[in-house]
């Protein structure tokens, strides 16, 4: 057990034999879609009504219809898509950095007790620092640049993936490893057929959480740090008094989050078809 670094209750990707509560992925997709769409429609209508009747101050909260038409106008606006591109590409690049840093780090922490014990304090110390609090430092070092953004995204998004990887390494099945050893499997076969597939569920969960954080930090660094992207557009729209545009941009960040989550969930399915959380036809 190597919970030393991972004691912030890491999510175990659905227990091997039973999962207590079905995840969102276990709900029938069609029902999810209909109910979800209906809820969104009701909320939009309520927003529209509240804003038009003065229940919500129209000066700061314009009706939903205005926001939606501003949103529709963005679809034809190249500047909007450029901003989306900046935000998304930094989030994904930052996530790539996270993987590059976390995989060797998790291996070192998971396999060496000395590394685990000497890094525990510093990791637990850094983990709760909000990436936002690091923006002044980032600005001092790199200015409102892409480098600043990537550094902060990587810093903020590192922890969930790292924690899951360390936990996963501690959970590698010792019966499977004994099997591999007793049949004298070569090192690379043991790694590629026994260890890595067993780590995938942990990596996938960690990566999905880290991806959401990467997007959030990406927008925040633009919003506060002034780097190019949706966040900066939100500030510009607000200071120009373009409230429908501002809300449309905020909604865009939400949609991006949803898309990223959906993309990762879809990529997991063919890789983790064998995992109890994914498979449908169990006989035993």
């Amino acid at each position, binding site marked *: 057990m190597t919970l030393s670094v991972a004691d912030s209750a890491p999510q175990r990707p659905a227990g091997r034999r039973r999962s207590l509560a079905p995840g969102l992925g276990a709900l029938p997709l069609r029902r999810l879609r209909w109910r979800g769409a209906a809820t969104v429609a009701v909320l939009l209508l309520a927003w529209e009504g509240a804003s038009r009747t003065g229940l919500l101050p129209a000066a700061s909260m314009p009706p939903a219809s205005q926001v939606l038409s501003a949103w529709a106008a963005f679809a034809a606006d190249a500047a909007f898509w450029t901003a989306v591109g900046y935000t998304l590409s930094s989030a994904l690049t930052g996530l790539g950095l996270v993987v590059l840093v976390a995989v060797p780090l998790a291996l070192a922490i998971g396999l060496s007790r000395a590394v685990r014990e000497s890094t525990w304090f510093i990791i637990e110390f850094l983990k709760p620092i909000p990436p936002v609090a690091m923006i002044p430092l980032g600005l001092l070092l790199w200015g409102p640049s892409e480098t600043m953004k990537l550094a902060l995204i990587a810093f903020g998004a590192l922890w969930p993936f790292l924690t899951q990887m360390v936990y996963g390494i501690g959970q590698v*099945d010792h*019966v*499977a490893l*004994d*099997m591999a*050893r*007793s*049949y*004298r*499997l*070569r090192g690379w*076969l043991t790694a590629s*057929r*026994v260890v890595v*597939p067993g780590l995938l569920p942990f990596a996938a969960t960690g990566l999905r959480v880290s991806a959401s954080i990467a997007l959030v930090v990406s927008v925040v660094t633009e919003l506060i740090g002034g780097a190019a992207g949706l966040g900066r557009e939100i500030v510009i729209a607000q200071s120009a008094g373009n409230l429908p545009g501002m809300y449309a941009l905020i909604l865009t960040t939400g949609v991006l989050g949803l898309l990223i989550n959906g993309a990762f969930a879809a990529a997991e399915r063919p890789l983790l078809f*064998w*995992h*109890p959380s994914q*498979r449908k*036809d*169990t*006989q*035993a």
Partner: protein
Amino acid sequence: MQQSIIETRTGDAPAGEAVVELVDLRKSYGTGPSAVQILDGVNFEVRRGEFVCVVGPSGSGKTTLLKCIAGLLKPSGGRTDFEGQEVTEPPAKLAVVFQDYSRSLLPWMTVRANIALPLRNKFPKQERQARIDEALESVGLAGKGHLYPWQMSGGMQQRAAIARGLAYQPDVLLMDEPFAAVDAQTRIDLEDLVLEVRDRYDTTVLFVTHDIDEAVYLADRVIVLSGAPTTVSHNITVDLPHPRHQVDTKREPRFAELRAFVFEQIQAAKSNTVRNRADA
């Protein structure tokens, strides 16, 4: 009282070449005053072609013993030899069937791929396929190789694990309480299956179990372990006729005699263990 009619061997070697030999095998965990002695000088041998069952009370270090024989654990003292060589790593001509099939079979691979994995560096591709087919057929899983382990019942999964061991064509098949997790009916089927494939593949089998009936039914020889710290308390030749039969064999007075004898030894070992622990 039954000691007189049970032949327990200590010194005189039986016919056949020893494939597995344990010489004063010792294993303890931990160091200093907190060290726990599990195996305290275990001596026995398994001859080629024999079916040997090891029984002992729970906590007598059966799994530790098996891991030392398989080269998965380093003994603290003494040694185990495999085909005349001291075991320092898992021997190439030995296959292990683990108790927990749901963990020893890899869920991301089909049964076929699971069986193929240990054969990769051993046999050319053509031969591999033939071996897998034969092994699947001999455990009654012909045509089921495309399934994933989790699409099968527990009994079928353990059959698949046995097929993996057989396809590897070991000289010795080491089985660690392989039927502890399956239901009674499946267990009976699997016991007969093991006897069958043992004849077909002509392998030596070392079978660890806590089930006395199973041990007496399957074995040519039963090794009874004492309670921890463990030594061999009895080495019993099972002189029941072959082939064994679930009803006829178990109906024989001799079966009942042997069974009762082993049972008594294990009960005695258990009370000894309690006494040893109280003394310590």
